[in-house]
């Protein structure tokens, strides 16, 4: 009888592993690589940043995660309602690598996460100020499943505790129908703006100890032209 019980338990363990393997290698949950706003005729503002914690002005989390806050004495988000939230402030650069603005990002694990569908969802917002231009608010749901599957988990599996390679993908998954973020302008030339955006990550190295080591982020924000806005409705 004991032998049958052991066979059943061993089978269940194998079944659970097989199921998780199927989820992990599921080819149907691939990342959207092409940004929907690359085909627009409107101006697209591109803002880059380094996702390496040491390159940020500040980065903070609950203080117990593997990636340490930066600088070391920054206030940590340890209270229960904000424990699954991270915050960062960073310098945003234009396409020539020049400082173009300051960006604040808050992101929290989302309750709409559904691993069965390959969705590791994070709710995030950007608060951006671009000197002499104005301010923007970008709200989005990010799906980090492909990034986790192809960069972070392989780093944990690696005997050297890191990952090196080339990975690029859009992490924005909504709320727009085409998987775009919603953008609202607040001041300056962006006052009253309602538009869409996409955030992408480009990874070359990830360390289990340090988190993203060589990972660049890019926010693409579509700025509708006045001509299009003023065109008569057919």
């Amino acid at each position: 009888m004991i032998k049958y019980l052991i066979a059943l338990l061993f089978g269940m363990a194998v079944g659970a592993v097989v199921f998780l393997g199927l989820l992990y290698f599921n080819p149907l949950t691939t990342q959207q690589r092409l940004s929907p706003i690359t085909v627009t005729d409107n101006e697209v503002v591109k803002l880059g940043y380094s996702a390496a914690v040491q390159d940020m002005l500040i980065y903070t989390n609950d203080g117990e995660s593997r990636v340490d806050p930066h600088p070391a004495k920054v206030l940590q988000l340890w209270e229960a309602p904000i424990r699954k939230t991270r915050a960062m402030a960073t310098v945003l650069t234009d396409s020539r690598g020049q400082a173009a603005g300051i960006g604040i990002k808050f992101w929290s694990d989302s309750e709409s996460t559904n691993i069965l569908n390959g969705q590791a969802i994070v709710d995030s917002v950007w608060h951006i100020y671009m000197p002499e231009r104005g301010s923007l608010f970008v709200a989005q749901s990010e799906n980090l499943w492909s990034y986790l599957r192809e960069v972070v988990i392989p780093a944990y599996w690696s005997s050297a505790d890191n990952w090196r390679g080339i990975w690029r993908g859009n992490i924005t998954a909504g709320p727009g129908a085409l998987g775009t973020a919603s953008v609202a302008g607040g001041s300056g030339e962006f006052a009253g703006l309602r538009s869409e955006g996409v955030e992408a990550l480009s990874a070359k190295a990830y360390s289990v100890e340090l988190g993203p080591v060589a990972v660049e982020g890019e926010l693409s924000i579509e700025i509708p032209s006045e001509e299009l806005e003023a065109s008569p409705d057919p």
Partner: protein
Amino acid sequence: MCGLSQIGAEEYDRNANLTKLSDMFKTFVAGILLGIAGAAAGLYYLPVVDQSREQSLIIVHPNLGNTETFYANVPTDRILIGAKSQQNPLPPGLQWPDDAEFANLRVELFKIRNAKDAVVGVASRMAANDEVPGDVVEWVLHLPARGSIYFSMQPEPEEGGHRVGQLQAGTREFGSLHGEISERWIADTTESDDAPAGRIELITALAALQADL
């Protein structure tokens, strides 16, 4: 005769062992199916992420939407002061960019609390004085279990010292709302040693957008 019965017994034992092995294999296969079903059911029914929630302390006004009050204790809830003129950087070790274009920009991050003094979210405040946008004061409040709200404030305070702003955008439970916010500094008057210097009070007054009938 004796030899034949011995062969029969061995055959019987072999068959019995094969049957046992076959039954165990069937049990193992059943276990695999159960494991797959169990893992699927577990991932379907058990929440992967469960955000902790504090009570939303909202006052509903007759025909005027609702108001909710948030606070940030200063300096204890302040995460960041980013400004070129800042003598003592917060957090210590912060290296704020000294580019000339950021000279008129001040960025602050806070933890925010509800009316019962429980931390419920984080917020950013940006204040700038540039030629093109003019005077800019803005807040973004991020409440992980509820959503985020973005306000643009009037640069000049009203009488009484509070500054008023309009809701520009909201997400999730704030996505279909419109309204305003007021910002006010309240200095601490308790003179207690461990009391904060004061607190920033933010009162949101939000209502649902009227649907077209």
